[in-house]
């Protein structure tokens, strides 16, 4: 009798473990907190400030999703992941979503069973070298020692680039950005390679940033975006359309400054649908009608988030470039809210 109860409990437990994770939104609501995976600290993208509050470009996506689902942008539990641990953390359900400058690739999307919900930063892999090295092009790097964050697509691109140009190099694999920078500054490697945005972010923290140059070659396409697990399409939709809402808000001229005014109703139907005063888009997602408005209020629209965290007025100083709205010649294009 007792034994059968025990076995029954075992079976139930294993079945429970099997279906857990299907309804991520319910889990998040029940928990009252969004578990969001971010990097271990990359200035401008995700790093805790002096008070220990996480802030940055990737962090803003987490906060927007938390605001849309829970109504509170601060209801986020940040889990810092390395290049190696990030996918295991997401696949095992430790985190609900990953916003950690992760490149959208075929095998990650298809083979690793993840779902990239969009692109929040269009990037490419670049090289940083000390000015005194006198290198002006990555093709002059024959025989150089290259510091690289291990376990990333940059590692594969690097091998491909040097192979395609028939030049040799010596990789120095490093676990985190901080260690890589330390090795680079100590001269243990000649150049450091990672996504160009990451290079700019790291260079901004140097004592003498002007002594280092970013080489002109961009050797890869790195569409960076948030991702979720396969199999819970409702949750994927929520994260996707929260990100789209931030991008659409910039295009439609909705900012954190004027959103209170616009929420009262405008004569632009798309703005009304976005902000939930018209139609039932929020309901379709299983969220409040004003989910997008909450997400935008969390940190502003895409443009505001960009300017505040990594834009030209910040020490990181990235130009919008590819990341401008499609209307301004960039690649950002949110599908219509209707």
């Amino acid at each position, binding site marked *: 009798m007792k034994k059968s109860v025990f076995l029954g409990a075992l079976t139930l*437990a294993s079945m429970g473990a099997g279906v857990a994770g299907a309804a991520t939104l319910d889990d998040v609501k029940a928990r009252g907190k969004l578990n969001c995976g971010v990097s271990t600290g990359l200035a401008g993208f995700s790093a805790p400030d002096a008070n220990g509050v996480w802030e940055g470009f990737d962090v803003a996506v987490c906060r927007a999703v938390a605001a849309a689902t829970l109504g509170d942008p601060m209801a986020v539990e940040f889990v810092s992941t390395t290049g190696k641990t990030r996918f295991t953390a997401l696949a095992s359900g430790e985190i609900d979503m990953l916003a950690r400058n992760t490149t959208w690739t075929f*095998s990650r999307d298809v083979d690793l069973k993840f779902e990239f919900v969009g692109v929040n930063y269009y990037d490419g892999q670049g090289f940083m070298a000390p000015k005194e090295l006198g290198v002006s092009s990555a093709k002059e790097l024959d025989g150089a020692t290259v510091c690289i964050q291990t376990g990333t697509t940059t590692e*594969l691109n690097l091998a491909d680039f040097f192979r395609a140009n028939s030049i040799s190099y010596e*990789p*120095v694999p490093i676990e985190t950005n901080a260690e890589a920078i330390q090795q680079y500054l100590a*001269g243990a490697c000649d150049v450091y390679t990672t996504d160009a945005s990451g290079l700019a972010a790291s260079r901004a923290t140097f004592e003498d940033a002007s002594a280092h140059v970013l080489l002109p070659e961009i050797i890869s396409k790195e569409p960076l975006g948030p991702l979720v697990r*396969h199999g819970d399409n409702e949750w994927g939709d929520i994260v996707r359309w929260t990100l789209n809402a931030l991008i659409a808000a910039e295009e439609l001229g909705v900012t954190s400054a004027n959103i209170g005014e616009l929420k009262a109703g405008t004569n632009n139907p798309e703005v009304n649908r976005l902000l939930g005063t018209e139609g039932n888009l929020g309901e379709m997602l299983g969220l409040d009608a004003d989910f997008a408005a909450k997400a935008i209020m969390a940190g502003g629209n895409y443009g505001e988030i960009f300017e505040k965290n990594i834009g030209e007025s910040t020490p990181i100083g990235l130009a919008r470039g590819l990341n401008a709205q499609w209307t301004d010649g960039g690649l950002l294009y949110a599908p219509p809210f209707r």
Partner: protein
Amino acid sequence: MTTLADPPKEQFKLSMLINDTRYRSLTFQALAAIALALMFWYLGNNLIQNLRAAGLNISFDFLGEAAGYDINQTLIEYDSQSSHLRAAIVGALNTLLVAFLACITATVFGVVAGVLRLSNNWLVSKLMAFYVEIFRNVPVLIWIIIIFTIMTAVLPGPRAFRGDDAEASMLFNAVAFTNRGVYIPLPWFSRGIFDSAALNWLLVLIVLGGSWFASRKIGQWASKVQEKEGVRPKTLWFTLGVWIAPFAVLMLIMGLSWQMPELKGFNFQGGIKLGGPLIALWFALSIYTGAFIAENVRAGIQAVSKGQTEAASALGLRPRRVMNLVVLPQALRVIIPPLISQYLNITKNSSLAIAVGYADITATLGGITLNQTGRAIECVMLLMLFYLTVSLLISMGMNIYNASVKLKER
């Protein structure tokens, strides 16, 4: 008259499984085995169900695919188009290399420190106690990082060697200490007997092996003569000749040359490069484990009864010979068993290589390959299999050695 009946035959009752000491231990072991099997069944079931729910499967096909990444220290041919399996083998060889080197140096450090800690010289024994306590009580990861950081921060970069009034210069124009590693000259043969360098080196090994065999034979001959005539013939010149002459002749025939490291482009080229990560890992593992081995050696020496030393001294042996001929051989029986676990520890601790970017198997198979393919379960299973196999092999080899030196009881 009463007859003595046989005692009634005991009936086996179920309660005896618990109450009878003959069966009790078996009962509990059986129960524990069932519980263990159930737990593994549950975990395995859980894994399979979760994988199925996530649409994943267990497959080792990825091992045959091109790895796509480069490795900075490879003992066998490898490039980014080689398979993940080959990358794993490169990592495994790197693990074995650093473990082998560290086992040897740790033993040397350990024996020296262990013997010196018992020295009558106050300063020497206290210095060794200081070494043992400092290194034993700080985690080995910290030592690895400290040594690596000191190396990269203190030693000059290759750039410092450039120019007419360079800040740094090579030792004897042959050895360069840089923050990327140490470059030493590479011996090679200009008139090798075989085309392949590996075969030439194999020949050198065979010749050295022959010298060793011959010198052993000389020793045996000397012992025999000593037993018969009471005087040991002088063998030093014979032994030296057997070692040096064939080796020198072989080197002359094959034309031994040295390739010097030279500063070309960004780095030193040519010669042998001992990478910074390898040196840091090797040195850190050696001094850390050496401190533990020192304690084993000390315990082993102290376990030998003082009477043995006194008796040996009474025979007129000098202290060094007392240690070498009387104390250490007996102490070995106490030292070897814990030494086995220290060798296992070195092998397992070498997986901390990732901290300094040394490409061991944890970094290749358990790091980059795992990450690029997302096959976490398969990679970790292979890693466990590798470390288990290596550990069991080391344990087996050392136990065979232990059986050969332990006290023979009849």
